[in-house]
């Protein structure tokens, strides 16, 4: 239709990854769920995994994630994605199985399932979105909410006496022998986003190499329920979340470094 536009001297610098559908996402403006989706899609493309990956959606704002990806997908019950992924992976060990879960989903109601998936060294990859709040249900306190954080279910601010301390899932999971690769990254600026992408690539390679449980925690924003602008939200991640949730590699098991250096055979 636009054949008369001359484009010989143009090069494509940005396009939709093959792993994405052309559906519009439903995320709020400025929400970094979209950034995390993009990173996962690019990583799947780069590793040529689109046709062998099964994506397990959580219950939370990302419940529709499988609609946005051109992959086979399903929606687990709230918190049970690692169990569902286990069932899928055990029957089809040659497939790549990825769950994408929020912090209410993974760190609260699904704490047992993620813990035991790691205990078993389940060869799956988890993208864990930590936005310190329950987004989908309208901004209630999550186990990751920080001390003093005001939410719709902690209007006076989260108190230690009432609700204990924020849960550091990556540090916790890294202590389990079955964990092969457990890292935390942040989505609050471009440099950190690039590092997050690398981590997702590594986690997928870890699964391809059969090394065991891999999880990438991503510090993410929820402008809507934090009551902040998108820019202020990014700043809040840096000022309020990073001190409690430092980025870092909490578990890099033997063999992972080789995978990072050499990559893996794409059809392993």
């Amino acid at each position, binding site marked *: 239709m636009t054949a008369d536009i001359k484009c010989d001297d143009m090069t494509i610098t940005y396009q939709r990854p093959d792993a994405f*559908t052309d559906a519009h996402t439903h995320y709020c403006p400025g929400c970094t769920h979209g950034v995390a989706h993009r990173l996962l899609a690019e990583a799947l493309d780069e590793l040529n995994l*689109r*046709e*062998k*990956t*099964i994506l*397990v959606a959580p219950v939370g704002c990302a*419940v529709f994630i*499988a*609609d946005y*990806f*051109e*992959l*086979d*997908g*399903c*929606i*687990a*019950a709230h918190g*049970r994605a690692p*169990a*569902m*992924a*286990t*069932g*899928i*992976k*055990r*029957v*089809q060990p040659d*497939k*790549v199985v990825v769950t994408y879960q929020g912090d209410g989903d993974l760190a609260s109601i699904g704490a*047992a*399932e993620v*813990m*035991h998936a790691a*205990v078993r060294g389940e060869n799956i990859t988890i993208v864990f979105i930590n936005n310190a709040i329950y987004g989908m249900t309208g901004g209630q306190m999550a186990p990751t909410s920080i001390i003093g954080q005001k939410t719709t279910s902690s209007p006076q601010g989260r108190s230690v006496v009432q609700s204990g301390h924020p849960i550091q899932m990556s540090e916790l999971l890294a202590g389990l022998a079955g964990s092969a690769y457990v890292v935390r990254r942040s989505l609050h600026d471009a440099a950190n986003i690039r590092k997050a992408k690398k981590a997702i690539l590594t986690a997928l390679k870890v699964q391809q190499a059969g090394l065991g449980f891999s999880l990438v925690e991503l510090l993410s924003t929820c402008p809507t329920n934090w009551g902040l602008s998108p820019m202020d939200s990014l700043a809040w991640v840096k000022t309020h979340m990073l001190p409690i949730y430092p980025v870092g590699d909490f578990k890099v098991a033997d063999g992972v470094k080789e995978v990072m250096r050499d990559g893996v055979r794409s059809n392993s």
Partner: protein
Amino acid sequence: MTKQLLKGNVAIAEAAVRAGLEAYFGYPITPQTELLEHLSARMPELGRVFLQAESEVAAINMLYGALSTGARAMTSSSSPGFSLMQEGLSYIAASDIPGVVVDVMRGGPGLGNILPSQGDYFQVTRSAGHGDYRPIVLAPASVQEAIDFTVLAFDLAEQYRHLVIIALDGLIGQMMEPAELPPMRDINTHRPDWALTGAEGRPKRMISSLYLQAEAQEAVNRRTQARLKIISENETRWIEYMTDDADYLLVGYGSAGRIAYSAVQSARRDGLKVGLLRPQTLWPFPSERLHELAGQVRGCLVVEMNAGQMLDDVRLAVNGRVAVDFFGRMGGIVPMPDEILGAIQQMQHERI
């Protein structure tokens, strides 16, 4: 094949293996545990998947995952564990995928005890999970029937893409009887056209139970109801014993049904014309046949190992045509044929 002495739980496990079970996920609980233990040895031996889950919640969701790939898979539990599976059962049912779950019922409510019971009748027949559907429920009354129903469960589940529950009281799970196992079937490696296998060279597939639009959800529910109607027209199963000339009708399933059978024999020896209807499917329930028989007898006596749960279904079916009495024992107590006979005699007295 020849008969061998088999414990109910082991018989179900081995029947499932022979029916081509590819994956099992479960959590220990008495009086179901032998089922899990048998599979923990057999499945790895055959290169198949066995996994002891961290909880029944995890087990049912692992099952959901395995079923989503089109594999023959199952889980099993007993009452408290079955309660924990409710959400997962509902997701499986809502996703239109075949699934088989065994509930070896024990005394309740609460932690209750590990003795035989039929206290989960409401739970298994009314939906087994939240929402608006019913699973197919098979209720074996012997070890042989437990074997046969296990094979049948997989076939029905796949034929209708529906959830099938095998509900047995702990007595059937625990007792040993001579029974014949089915021949070994090959694993069906064919994957149906809805299975999640990776979108290689084909459009993507989704397994979901989420329908945010009311109209879409209602359309799905209507489709489910239409399927349930077909199932109830074709898959209602029951056994009758001496109903032709019966003046009184006993209705019981599982162990209670089997004990009622002995009571019919004693009654007949005493010259009382008693017959038995034993539902083999608790859903779909043999309501039509019961309604017919109600027109012929002077009274019905429902026998259960609970406070009267199937009783509701019998009353609905009989619809006032004849009086419906109840005899039940609870807490893990198994009714005796003499007690049932006594109840029949009393009914006869009252309903001359």
